[in-house]
């Protein structure tokens, strides 16, 4: 019997320039760096809020209302001693320290942003995988998704909050639901193209059960676009939470959030613009950071935007 001459060394494909690792590529991307740094800073601020020279954000002092930024005034601390505090961002109409409220508000915004992103991606991924792979289900699921997409996101969220009552959890759910169809569409489109790949057909023909095919061969293809989608969802969730709170239907007013602070500052905004300015700056910065991070991730992860490297 003749032996087949094809040792690996003879015809070995040269290690194709796989290039720098994905982490290295991410780190040189300007958007990822800028967005990442600001986001990490905000995260640290949220975690270390009590240690950043803040007062109790709910502590109100009726004698020191509507003070301008940098004004100082003495208060009694827990031990009954008098200490001088500086109101870096002034005080609001109830005499609460704005700096403390904005810093604590970071917590709520980030919690809402991250949870909504996780929730929407998690649910959307499951629905998208199943609907893209199982044909008869697809028509039904996608019509429901079309229906959801036909209602403006904020309106839907408003309705859901009205239905479930205001609270952190319900706000998160109400913001996540309108985001789900977008994720479903994205995942489904990836599934529809990958399911036709010969390696998926090969897996079918060696008897791999459908759930395993979805997990092993199809799911990994959705990760990169999903990471990108998750950042956009996160940014939009932070914004929508602020809008809902501003409209007075979001997180209850006793919890400081950027939206709540701005809603309360709205009445005297012409006289004391600082009450809206500072939470506004934080909100804009957070959304900008998440979005630039998303753009950077997309440029490096999404093959459609990847620079063509073959020669």
């Amino acid at each position, binding site marked *: 019997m003749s032996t087949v001459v094809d040792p690996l060394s003879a015809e070995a494909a040269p290690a194709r320039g796989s290039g720098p690792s994905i982490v290295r590529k991410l780190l040189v991307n300007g958007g990822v760096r800028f967005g990442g740094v600001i986001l990490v800073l905000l995260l640290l601020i949220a975690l270390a809020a009590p240690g950043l020279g803040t007062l109790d954000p709910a502590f109100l002092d009726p004698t020191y209302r509507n003070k301008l930024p940098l004004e100082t005034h003495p208060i009694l601390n827990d031990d009954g001693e008098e200490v001088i505090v500086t109101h870096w961002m002034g005080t609001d109409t109830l005499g609460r320290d704005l700096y403390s409220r904005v810093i604590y508000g970071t917590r709520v915004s980030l919690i809402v942003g991250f949870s909504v992103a996780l929730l929407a991606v998690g649910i959307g991924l499951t629905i998208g995988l199943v609907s893209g792979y199982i044909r008869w289900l697809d028509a039904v699921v996608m019509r429901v998704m079309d229906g959801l997409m036909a209602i403006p996101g904020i309106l839907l969220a408003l309705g859901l909050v009205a239905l479930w009552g205001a609270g952190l959890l319900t706000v998160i759910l109400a913001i996540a639901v309108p985001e789900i169809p977008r994720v479903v569409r994205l995942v489904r489109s990836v599934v529809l193209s990958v399911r036709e790949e010969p390696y998926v057909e090969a897996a079918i023909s060696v*008897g791999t059960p459908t759930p395993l095919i979805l997990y092993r061969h199809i799911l990994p293809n959705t990760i990169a676009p999903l990471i990108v989608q998750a950042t956009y969802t996160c940014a939009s969730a932070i914004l929508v939470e602020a809008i809902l709170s501003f409209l007075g239907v979001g997180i209850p007013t006793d919890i400081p959030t950027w939206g709540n602070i701005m809603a309360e500052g709205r009445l005297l905004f012409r006289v004391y613009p600082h009450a809206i300015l500072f939470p506004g700056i934080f909100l804009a910065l957070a959304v900008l950071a998440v979005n630039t991070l998303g753009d950077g991730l997309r440029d490096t992860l999404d093959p459609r935007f990847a620079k063509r490297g073959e020669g």
Partner: protein
Amino acid sequence: MNAPAPVLDIRGLTISLPAGADRDNAVEDIDLQVHPKEIVCVVGESGSGKSVTAHAVMGLLPKGELQPTAGAIHLAGKALLEKTPAELRELRGARMSMIFQEPFTALNPVVRVGQQIEEVLTIHTDMSASARRTRVLAVMDDVRLPEPEQMIDAFPHQLSGGQRQRIMIAAALALEPALLIADEPTTALDVTTQAQILALIKDIQASHDTGVLFITHDFGVVAEIADRVIVMQNGRVVEAGAASRVLTTPEHPYTQMLIASVPSLIPKVRDGETHHQMVLATRDLAKTYKSSGLFQKTREVQAASNVNISLQRGETLGIVGESGSGKSTVARCIVRLITPTSGAIMIHDQDIAPLRASKLQDYRQKVQIVFQDPYRSLNPRRTVGLSIVEGPMNFGLDQATAWTRARELMSLVGLDPNALDRLPHQFSGGQRQRICIARALAMQPEILIADEAVSALDVSVQAQVLKLLDQIREQFNLAMLFITHDLRVAAQVCDRIVVMHRGEVVEQGSASTVFSSPAHAYTKALFEAAPGREWSQRLHS
């Protein structure tokens, strides 16, 4: 002898590759001349630098990545490498033009074909609109497009692949260029269409005094049209000479190897020991694709109908046909990747056509398939070892045994067993196809289906993989269903041949009978069209 000045004169051309590539230069020290009225074929396998040479002439090399570092290219006396981009633009289309491999992507889908031909005239001449139209109609007539008056306003999707390639040629010839570069112009076409396009190119260059630089990997095509042949390997010219000489008495070992690898059209005499154990039979197998929607009319496409084939242990049955003949549909029905609309698929004594997905599991083990595209049939994210053990482990084989089997199979298909933990991109196309074969064999199937399994491979690699397939068929006494559009390949590996045309079987019989005395008109036409027939017969007689 007083030879006319060449239209294209390439001397000592070297083009460097960017740092980190597998070799320093894409092409090195190339000498090449094309004279008027001459067809020069550049032949080579993938990566030989033949397309890079063509793109260098047109000035279409990707900026910054590929850079000519030495040598000169002269087009009718003009030094092309010294021209500015604007001057090159003047020459392109007017003095030299190019036709590409894919007629489907080379035309703009949203512009009428007449306008796409006319564009060349608008840019390079100051002809009036009516004169341009007359000229467009004339060139369309030249490339023998039927009813140019109507076709001039058609969109590319309304034309067939062959017609689109004719449009490309018409556009390339509109200004009677001195040089026509054809980069694998018939590779994406069916054999019968290919024969027509080759005849057309030959006719046209003769009547227009055009010099043609024809790039191809197919020696059959070379035999059909070339006046002179240039053989390239790894960026160097290894042999050049008159076609009649190179094709019959190649001097360089590489050329000899390439020509020897071209499968002959004369069927191999095979030992007729079949075991008369029927493993597969289809009865009136049919597949109809229906597309219907809420707001559309229902459309039906009959991909296959009335297919009756049978397969015995130890034999290879070839299904031959052009694109759209339904040969792949039949294969996919048999593997049950799709459900047939009607008919029966008998595996031993069981009809598997009506079985539901959950009932198919036992049977999956018996039938395995190897696909065409080696680059897409392995999951790029999983090591080849994981791909090979996936099947057996689905059927409850324990991990240790599965991996031992995978190592044995790697040796069997001629690869290093220690390479199991590598990813697919670390292998060449031929090696990947071997891995796919190993994956199929890991299931210990009775029937192996090869769906165009060697079509994407270079001819020398193709010969090796064909040999491997034949060897494992013998060793495991497999029944093999070999689906191909390539008559040469079919002649070499098949015991029996089924010819399909438009979803129906038009002829079947033993390979030697079908090849020596085809009965059906379509089969005859198909064999007529096979490029390099006469050369092949002379070579192997």
